């Protein structure tokens, strides 16, 4: 007897040595094939086991195919199973030999034992050899009518397998209709569930070519069928329940009562031990209640506990998958989870991908009442051994600070981070302090005092260095040694590898120059010279630009480089809410785990039909465009509440009604400029031959910097047109739109009625878009479905860079259009509104 297979495997699993074994096996099998001696089954079993294990570890044992088939005449079920397995594995590569097996498989399909019938049928369908399909139809047909549910279960799956081998054979034999009959009448739930799976797959594939199939596919989603399944759901196995729930999620109930019926029917599924069932139920509930804002809220409340339990039970993989879904929900409705913030505290042992999700959720749920505890907890993580998590948590603290109104305590914490003397902590904290100052300039005193103590030598990371340099430039007035720190940084220009840092350095030294000209003059010269010689295009261009702007006019330069800043109220969101909505539509799928909608990670051919193209998917105008693709207006309202930009914040921005454009600040303090010109004019004494201010200062700068460059003519100021004419080719990128929409106050809010023709013409949003474009009003984003549509338009004055932004919500059932207009030029908004209304009223009129 040969030694046990395992030793062979470990010593030489390669092909050549396997060959000897295989021929050995072959002869042994041949000996046993005809034998009827008692105990022969046992030796067969040993041999079969050996064959199977060779097969599994990748040794080609197809050579013994004939012998295996010969040995298959046995009543031993384990032998049969092994034989079926072997045949199933090699039939595809040996279609000729597979023919040999048909005979005994067909015979077994008529065996008295239902288990053998089932197994034989399964193996028969798993051969997947195209020219054998004719032998399948008969056994499948009788299998579907078999007394034993086990055989029927197998047969139903067999039909699906047959369909994939040869669709026409399957359809010609009328199997789909048989399955449909079984699905609605069989007593065994597993048979029913398999029928559902098979039919869904077959009809979806057929739907593109056959009208009947697409009708049948629709019929699967009809009320009687869905309720037939839902009413029996408790009898199904847990996996089949997932299928049924998935089917129900595609069903569109006709009225609210139906929705409540379904939810009542399924409420106990939320308590199922199987997480897959729970999650599928949650998806169904969320989808059903999308149009009912208040019930949707209740659903969130209801699913909270089951989700949190799922997270804390099961394997790390399970909890991560659940956590990703929870993350999505928390991001959509943070206020609902704000009292459960402790669930998002990180455990020491958790893998960092879990911690990262939790940190994001903690950031999202922070509100006035829990901020203190959350920030305290986050500060604990800053001392974490896991450095990426420590960084992440510092960033989270910063994000919370940027969301909150009362940042007192948080600022203190951040400043403590700066004093922790750990490089990465300092680096992260610096970046945060910078952002914080941009939003809350009133904290500059406290922050600058601490930042001033940080030695720039201890800051190595580009982002942090850039942040530090930005602060040095911005607050050079308050930081005594700012010019000297900048100077020393410029001295090391060549050692600075990050272009970002060098760019910031240029800007900072410019700013510093306007505030403290005498001290910075030398550094500025050195920086511009180094910048002009820089190999990096952006750095070079910026240096050149600064140089020329200084040359043109110092006060203009200051207005360009260092205008008075408006505090930033909201930082742009990285992921557009349209994408988030799309992910939400794909709840309970991998999209949520990857945090990407499915079209981003699936091949084109596997994608379902989408309403939007990829380009549109990327078009992000941020929070305000949260209209999703299938969201009725009342949810839009709910959505708006989720947004970073809450209503009170909007009001805050209304206060200063200056138009937010950096280039036309109405008032600024010119004293620093005069000091700068002073410094320059002092220099001009060295070169008294040229009179006049402009050439004088330009030469002065040349002298100052020791450079000689040609002068450029200054651009002529454009005259503003008196009448409101719109630019038909206006362009505005989504980012700018988003930014402007946030910055500008609403200058006009009106409600128009839409003409009946207009309502009739508004079947899709595209129709209106084209129409408005004809009136030089362009759409940047749109969404919604009858009867509610939401649009964002923009228009520009014909000869001026003055933009109008419009949010337009049209409800076709009430024939009303609500518009909100925001404009750079407030005075023209009335005029624009009239124009917009006349354009809208012409919609649908031929």
């Amino acid at each position, binding site marked *: 007897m040969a030694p046990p297979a395992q030793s062979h495997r470990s010593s030489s699993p390669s092909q050549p040595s396997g060959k000897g074994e295989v021929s050995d096996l072959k002869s042994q099998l041949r000996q046993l094939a005809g034998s009827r001696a008692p105990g022969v*089954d*046992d030796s067969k079993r040993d041999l079969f086991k050996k064959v*199977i*294990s060779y097969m599994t570890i990748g040794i080609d044992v197809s050579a013994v195919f004939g012998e295996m088939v010969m040995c298959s005449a046995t009543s*031993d*079920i*384990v032998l049969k*199973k*092994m034989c079926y*397995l072997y045949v199933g594995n090699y039939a595809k590569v040996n279609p000729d030999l597979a023919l040999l097996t048909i005979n005994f498989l067909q015979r077994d399909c008529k065996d008295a*034992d*239902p*288990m053998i019938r089932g*197994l034989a049928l*399964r193996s028969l369908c798993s051969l997947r050899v195209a020219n054998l399909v004719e032998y399948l139809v008969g056994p499948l047909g009788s299998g579907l009518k078999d007394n*034993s*549910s*086990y055989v029927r279960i*197998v047969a139903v*799956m067999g039909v699906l*397998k047959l369909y994939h081998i040869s669709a026409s054979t399957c359809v010609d034999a009328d199997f789909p209709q048989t399955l449909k009959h079984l699905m609605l009448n069989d007593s*065994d739930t*597993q048979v029913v569930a*398999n029928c559902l*799976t098979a039919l869904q797959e077959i009809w979806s594939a057929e739907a593109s070519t056959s009208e009947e199939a697409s009708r049948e596919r629709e019929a699967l989603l009809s009320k009687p069928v869905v309720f037939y399944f839902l009413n029996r759901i408790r009898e199904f*196995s*847990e*996996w089949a329940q*997932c299928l049924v729930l*998935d089917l129900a999620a595609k069903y569109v109930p006709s009225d609210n009562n139906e929705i409540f019926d379904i939810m009542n029917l399924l409420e*106990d599924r939320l*308590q199922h*031990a*199987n997480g*897959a069932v729970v*999650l*599928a139920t949650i998806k169904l509930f969320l989808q059903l209640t999308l149009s009912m804002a208040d019930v949707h809220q209740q659903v969130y409340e209801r699913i909270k*506990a*089951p989700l*949190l*339990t*799922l997270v*804390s*039970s099961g394997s790390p*993989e*399970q909890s991560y*998958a*659940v956590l990703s879904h929870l993350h999505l929900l928390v991001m959509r409705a943070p206020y609902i989870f704000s009292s459960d913030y*402790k669930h998002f*505290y990180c*455990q*020491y*042992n958790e893998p960092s991908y879990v911690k990262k999700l939790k940190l994001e959720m903690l950031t999202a749920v922070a509100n006035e009442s829990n901020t203190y505890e959350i920030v305290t*907890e986050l500060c604990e993580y800053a*001392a974490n*051994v896991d450095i990426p998590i420590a960084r992440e948590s510092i960033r989270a603290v910063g994000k919370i600070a940027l969301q909150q109104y009362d940042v007192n305590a948080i600022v203190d914490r951040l400043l403590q981070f700066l004093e*922790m003397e750990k490089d990465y902590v300092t680096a992260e904290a610096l970046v945060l302090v910078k952002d914080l100052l941009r939003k809350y300039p009133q904290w500059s005193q406290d922050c600058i005092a601490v930042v001033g103590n940080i030695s720039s030598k201890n800051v190595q990371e580009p982002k942090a260095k850039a942040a530090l340099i930005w602060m040095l430039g911005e607050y050079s007035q308050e930081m005594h040694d700012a010019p000297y720190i900048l100077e020393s940084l410029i001295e090391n220009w060549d050692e600075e590898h990050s272009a970002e840092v060098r760019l910031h350095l240029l800007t900072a030294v410019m700013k510093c120059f306007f505030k403290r000209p005498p001290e910075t003059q030398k550094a500025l010269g050195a920086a511009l010279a180094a910048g002009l010689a820089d190999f990096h295009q952006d750095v070079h261009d910026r240096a050149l630009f600064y140089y020329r702007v200084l040359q043109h006019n110092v006060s203009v330069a200051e207005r360009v480089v260092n205008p008075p800043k408006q505090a930033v109220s909201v930082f742009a969101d990285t992921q557009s809410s349209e994408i988030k909505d799309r992910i939400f539509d794909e709840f*309970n*799928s*991998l999209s949520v785990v990857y945090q990407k909608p499915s079209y981003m990670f699936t091949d084109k051919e596997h994608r379902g039909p989408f309403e939007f193209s990829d380009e549109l998917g990327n078009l992000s105008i941020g929070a305000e465009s949260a209209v999703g693709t299938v969201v009725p207006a009342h949810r839009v309202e709910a959505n708006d509440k989720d947004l970073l930009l809450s209503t009170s914040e909007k009001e805050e921005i209304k206060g200063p009604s200056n138009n937010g454009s950096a280039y036309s600040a109405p008032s600024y303090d010119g004293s620093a400029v005069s000091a700068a010109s002073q410094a320059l004019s002092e220099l001009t004494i060295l070169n008294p031959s040229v009179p006049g201010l402009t050439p004088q200062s330009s030469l002065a700068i040349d002298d100052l910097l020791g450079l000689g460059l040609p002068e450029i003519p200054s651009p002529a100021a454009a005259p503003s047109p008196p009448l409101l004419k719109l630019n038909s080719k206006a362009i505005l990128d989504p980012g700018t739109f988003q930014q402007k929409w946030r910055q500008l106050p609403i200058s006009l809010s009106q409600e128009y009625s839409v003409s009946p023709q207009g309502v009739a013409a508004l079947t899709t949003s595209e129709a209106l878009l084209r129409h408005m474009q004809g009136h030089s009003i362009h759409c940047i984003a749109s969404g919604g479905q009858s009867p509610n549509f939401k649009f964002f338009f923009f228009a520009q004055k014909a000869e001026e860079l003055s933009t109008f932004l419009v949010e337009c919500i049209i409800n076709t059932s009430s024939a009303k259009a609500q518009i909100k207009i925001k404009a750079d030029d407030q005075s023209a908004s009335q005029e624009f509104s009239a124009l917009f209304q006349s354009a809208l009223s012409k919609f649908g009129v031929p």
Partner: protein
Amino acid sequence: MPPLMAIEFLCRVADVLSDYLGGLNEDVIKDNFVIVYELLDEMIDNGFPLTTEPNILREMIAQPNIVSKVLSVVTGNSSNVSETLPGATASCVPWRTSEPKYANNEVYVDLVEEMDATINRDGALVKCEIYGEVQVNSHLSGLPDLTLSFANPSILDDVRFHPCVRFRPWESHQILSFVPPDGQFKLMSYRVKKLKSTPIYVKPQLTSDAGTCRVNVMVGIRNDPGKTIDSITVQFKLPPCILSADLTSNHGTVNILTNKTCSWSIGRIPKDKAPSMSGTFVLETGLERLHVFPTFQVSFRIMGVALSGLQIDKLDLKNLPNRPYKGFRALTRAGEFEVRS
């Protein structure tokens, strides 16, 4: 494809396989290819999960244990599979094998709880929660109908049930009514949050000065649960900036493992003294003070007490020929019990 469906299914496959093969690793699978194939055949077809109920599988495919081997030798029956199809596939209680018979009818109900807690360096309880399971081991003949009720079901925060539990009685009276599967199973899992105290305290103190750090950890009973707390261990990972550590304790043993994990096993807390561990860390050169503080992970076990306070009121059995034996147990152990320093 719903991600949880795949993950749950894989977990279930792993459970079934390790149940069958008495463990799950590469070698075990290699030795039992045939059984694994047989099982997978019944559990999944064409990518769709079919039967994952261990009871049904066990009827279709015999376990490769010594008993069945002996049996097959003695009886001469070479097939290790029953000749008939399991009846349960068609029965309305798919989790129960058809009509098992036991000479001694017995049922055991265990409350197993895990306490997850996070304690701050100042001893304040940041978070304390209990995740519990009701595990039942039933060996009952026929189709028994069981009713389990709790004395204080209102403390439960969220519950999840085995499919056998009927939903309505729980909804209206918080009573668990079910026909149990045969053998060991998880009847229900639950969560109890907002607990006010932990049974033991762990107080770490770290003071660093001029390149060394003095450590002192004290452990004691904070809130006597009434039963002995045993198997207490305190574990923590040494921060990477520590060159060497010297730790001793007045009770139990301290081990520093190669992966820089320090483990102090205490066992039971003695009556006469509070266990403490103390020693020094030598920090990397150039470091004055310790910046990264270790988190101490504590484990313990308390037999006979469910710390959440959940109590079983009574267990009624119907549909049984003779009076069965009923057993109840409770156990609490530490889950993620961590103390920051």
